[in-house]
């Protein structure tokens, strides 16, 4: 039987993740054997890139920190240039269980959707996010539903599978810092179909979240404005 993940590229954006990245990469190799992995080192100052290379994982290294969205976009370009059919975004911090990869990829491969979003809230799970984050999720889930009529309970989920066409489009046009609600609106407006897939998520094991305090003030403003702009822009 051919490996169901042979044309899938797992893209791991990483910024100063030397503590959790090795375990994450090892877990991917163990639970999803044979899948290709790419680490996008977003300007780390620690051994992130080195540790990935030691495991034989190719690393694209931004010389400066550009943000998680830009890191993902770099991964898309790599995936498209090398002919992968599906790109899966997986966080370096060990939040996402690689065992769920096949389930996440399946609807994209079957043509049921173009973007599959691994969500912890489709079914009940023991994960409890901090209050501010929960409020943000409810807010932007509502924004997406009103804007494009798609029900996505967790717009911030960083565990997603993108089909090839989506990656081709996103290679050129993609939010730099937070690839969340505005991205989903922009993709839906282009006619791409989004679907949520239930996954269980774990707590961060180490390292720092991309969503820091300073950004938590800027985040709602930026995402609101960007969501509005995604609606006003004509899909090209």
């Amino acid at each position, binding site marked *: 039987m051919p490996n169901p993940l042979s044309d899938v590229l797992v893209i791991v954006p990483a910024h100063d993740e030397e503590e959790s990245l090795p375990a994450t990469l090892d877990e991917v190799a163990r639970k999803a054997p044979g899948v290709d992995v790419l680490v996008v080192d977003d300007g780390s100052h620690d051994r992130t890139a080195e540790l990935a290379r030691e495991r034989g994982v190719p690393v694209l290294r931004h010389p*400066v920190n550009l943000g998680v969205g830009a890191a993902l976009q770099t991964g898309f370009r790599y995936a498209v240039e090398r002919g992968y059919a599906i790109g899966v975004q997986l966080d370096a911090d060990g939040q996402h269980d690689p065992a769920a990869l096949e389930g996440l990829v399946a609807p994209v491969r079957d043509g049921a959707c173009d973007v599959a979003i691994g969500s912890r809230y489709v079914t009940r799970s023991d994960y409890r996010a901090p209050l501010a984050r929960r409020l943000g999720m409810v807010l932007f889930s509502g924004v997406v539903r009103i804007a494009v009529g798609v029900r996505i309970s967790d717009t911030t989920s960083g565990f997603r599978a993108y089909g090839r066409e989506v990656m081709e489009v996103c290679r050129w046009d993609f939010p730099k810092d937070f690839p969340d609600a505005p991205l989903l609106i922009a993709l839906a407006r282009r006619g791409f179909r989004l679907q949520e897939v239930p996954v269980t998520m774990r707590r961060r094991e180490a390292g720092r979240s991309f969503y820091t305090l300073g950004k938590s003030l800027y985040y709602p403003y930026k995402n609101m404005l960007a969501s509005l702009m995604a609606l006003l822009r004509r899909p090209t």
Partner: protein
Amino acid sequence: MTFLSRAQIIVALGAVALALVVLDLVRRRRLSEEYSLLWVAATAVIAVLGFSTPLLQALTRGLGILYEGSTVFAFGLAFALAMLLHLSIKLSRMGHENHVLAREIAFLRLELERLRDGGDRGNA
């Protein structure tokens, strides 16, 4: 002929001095011609308004402003806003260009590493 007020003279001379500084910066290649345009235009307008009382008065009346000084300030403020917006736009574009370049470097570096590794194996 109306006499120039002291404030008017100071404003006008200040504008001329600024224009000279801007032009000198261009001469020494510290400021690109592109950016000097807005500065030179602004200082020219302020200087003309400063030296020519009738023009300033006519403009002030025409715009419905009560006091001539406000006209000069209004033009100065308009210029400052235009310049800031211009810089914000430039900055956004440069940020985008930076991203593209950083990404390009990342790809080139990976390619270089691959070539080097392949070369090592070939020699062994």
